[in-house]
């Protein structure tokens, strides 16, 4: 036994274990900070206000979808159709030529309705019929992509001007902050509150973490999953609409492929692969992290193709880490 002033090995070990427990699942924001600091040191232009706000704006488009995908992932399901649904949002809004309030509403409503239908279909297949979520949502992504291509005849979709309110939402600023960034944060706050303050949120975590317990406690698991897929789809459509208003010109395959960035962001934010864990707070950090890393790579002049490789490695790394640090009591996949 060492003297009274020196901590014994036991207490140090216990402290480390407790710190590990605390950090587990909460690594996202510290990592975000770390990356931010590292990038600021390595790349001087990183730290300018303009650049940071740009990161916020860019991350918002991925982030809004990521917030939605988080619901599905907490329920233990994947939603890889969000990219195609982003495309739906983009296309249905712009093809309505939203120059006045009427056409804007038409475009927005049609996008949301179609997205909801896709979400419902996903939810029924995965939540009720218990089909494999990865393969099913890949399939539905393709169906949606195909239908979108049919609808546009695979042409570019371009508008010259849009309803001012829409322009503001996607390209404007409120004070110094870009509006999409604000929308992102608002969506995140509402989502996080929804998860922590509603009964549904609790049921979602239970359905993902311990589906048997949830079932035996009267939770209707199918319903919970369907709602999660609906949320995921609707937010994807919203983000698509924002992107469309920003770029004003769309080319095929529209949003398809976006889902990997979103998935990476969600995983970087500490979402567990098996459900019942994670939070929107983490996802926000993940989206920002992805944005920062992308920005850093851009500033360093790294080729786009190489960036893809890096992002793929990030996804694999995040998944491997999730596996490594998964709490012992979580069921494996």
């Amino acid at each position, binding site marked *: 036994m060492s003297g009274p002033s020196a901590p014994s090995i036991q207490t140090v070990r216990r402290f480390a274990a407790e710190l590990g427990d605390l950090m587990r699942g909460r690594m996202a924001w510290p990592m975000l900070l770390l990356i931010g600091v590292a990038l600021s040191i390595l790349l001087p232009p990183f730290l300018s206000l303009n650049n940071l706000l740009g990161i916020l704006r860019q991350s918002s488009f991925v982030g809004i979808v990521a917030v939605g995908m988080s619901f599905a992932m907490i329920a233990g399901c994947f939603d890889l159709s969000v990219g195609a649904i982003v495309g739906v949002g983009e296309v249905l809004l712009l093809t309505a030529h939203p120059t006045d309030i009427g056409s804007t509403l038409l475009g927005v409503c049609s996008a949301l309705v179609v997205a909801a239908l896709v979400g419902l279909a996903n939810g029924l297949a995965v939540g009720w019929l218990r089909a494999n979520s990865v393969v099913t949502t890949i399939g539905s992504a393709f169906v949606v992509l195909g239908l979108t291509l049919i609808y546009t005849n695979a042409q570019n979709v371009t508008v010259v001007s849009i309803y001012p309110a829409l322009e503001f939402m996607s390209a404007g600023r409120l004070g110094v902050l870009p509006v999409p960034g604000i929308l992102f944060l608002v969506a995140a706050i509402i989502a996080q509150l929804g998860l922590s303050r*509603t009964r549904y949120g*609790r049921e979602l975590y239970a359905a993902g973490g311990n589906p048997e317990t949830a*079932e035996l406690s009267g939770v209707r698991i199918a319903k919970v999953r369907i709602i999660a897929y609906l949320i995921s789809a609707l937010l994807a459509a919203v983000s698509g609409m924002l992107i469309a208003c920003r770029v004003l010109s769309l080319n095929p395959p529209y949003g398809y492929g976006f889902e990997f960035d979103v998935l990476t962001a969600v995983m970087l934010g500490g979402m567990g692969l098996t459900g019942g864990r994670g939070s929107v707070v983490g996802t926000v950090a993940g989206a920002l992290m992805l944005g920062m890393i992308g920005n850093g790579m851009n500033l360093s002049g790294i080729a786009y193709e190489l960036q893809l490789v890096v992002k793929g490695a990030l996804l694999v790394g995040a998944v491997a880490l999730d596996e490594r640090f998964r709490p012992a*009591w979580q069921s494996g996949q």
Partner: protein
Amino acid sequence: MLGQTPAISVVKLTKRFPGVVALKDVTLEFRPGEVHALVGQNGAGKSTLVKILSGALEPSEGQILLGGKPTRVATPVDAVGFGIATMTQEMNLVPTLSVAENVLIGHLAQRRGRVDWPAVRKAARELLVELGFDIDPDARVENLSVAQRQGVEIARALSRRAKIVLMDEPTSALAAPEIEKLFGTVAKLRARDTSIIYISHKLEEIFRVADRVSVFREGECVATLETGKTDRDAIVRLMVGRELRSDAERRKKAVCERVPILEVANLASKGKFQDVSFQLYPGEILGIEGLVGSGRTEIVRAVFGADPVDSGSIRVAGKPIGNVRPDRMIASGVGLVPEDRRTQGLVLGMSIVDNVSLVDLARRRSFGLREIGVERSAAQKLVDALSVRAPSLATPVATLSGGNQQKVAIGKWLRTSPRILIFDEPTRGVDIAAKADILRIIKDLAEQGVGIIFISSEQAEVLTVCDRILVLREGRIVAEFNHKEANSELLTQAAFGRSRPRLSGTEVGAP
């Protein structure tokens, strides 16, 4: 047989788990060409011994001797390598492959790098025929009956030249003619000098098929007898040890209401239970006793709606419940504290507050928002009432001890003021202090008028706590006792004994 080196033996084998000693100082030998049975009540230690012999567990102390030599059996694969074959209820066959492929898995006959299918089929067929089975070697294992799958497992053991075969409850899912065939197979194995270790609850079988029987009680092997020189009663007495009488401390409030709160009629589920009918009265604690695998958990899960049934009806407070489902039963005031709290009773990743608030009756109120304040105070009250020891309400339940976890799993239901609460092994894996707490909670609930169904493998508990006890055997209710007449010997006899039609009151049967 005497004087031969035992095929396998254990010397001073001890196995400790946190909080319990599963095996104490067991020394036994198993001889070639012998069928050696192991009997004992639930938790007496026989399964633990089998797990150690099959390599699934390692002993805390003591040795395993194979052919006289001390050997370490560290993993199941080791055991297979040493010639130890294990047959358990979860059969380790590959369901999608054929019988022949399963029998010769890992050493398929080859000819110049190609699988020699005719040779594989021939070898498998020969083994099966030798064992007395007529199974098509090309049949897919998943299409076979349990009896046939057992045949395949035994054939596989033989193809690996197993010297020792462990059989854990081999006849539990078999019909009479299949059981006869199994006995024939065992005889054939015996003739080949295989050493067979046979665990069963069916005493009449043991007398038919075994040469010797070892009785386990509370982790120790209390006797090893030759089956020719003993009888059923002696064995039961050895299993039970001291007699436990129903606890004199009976609750004062008698069960005066005779209107049942729960009526179960003719519940049946193929392969699990048949002909189950009983009533539960408010304020009564009804125990369901029986051996592991007799259908206790299956029945209460079916009553709660967690599993579907083939036929039967359930009425709560006189109202029939159609399409029985957990959320419907919960709405009718029924709750279930399941057997496995970690996967069925709790959401391990969530906090105490969240777990306790999970069962949700007042859904429509407050637009689906949680009333955090109300939840917290309710949770605090429960934590105090149940003496849950935890750093705070926000602690994730995964970090709590078994006893405290169980209390949270129970507390979840108390919030809903249930009319009926089912407890399936509520004190399993729980420390002594928490056990006493939990039993007290159950008694208090009964006093408040809640109808309770209580399943426990510990007879002492059942006798202490229950007003009435049903005994199950192979999916049927075979006896009913009230607390005055119940004692451990009667319960054990009924659980082990021959099936008798159930009469109200006591069992009519062997003295």
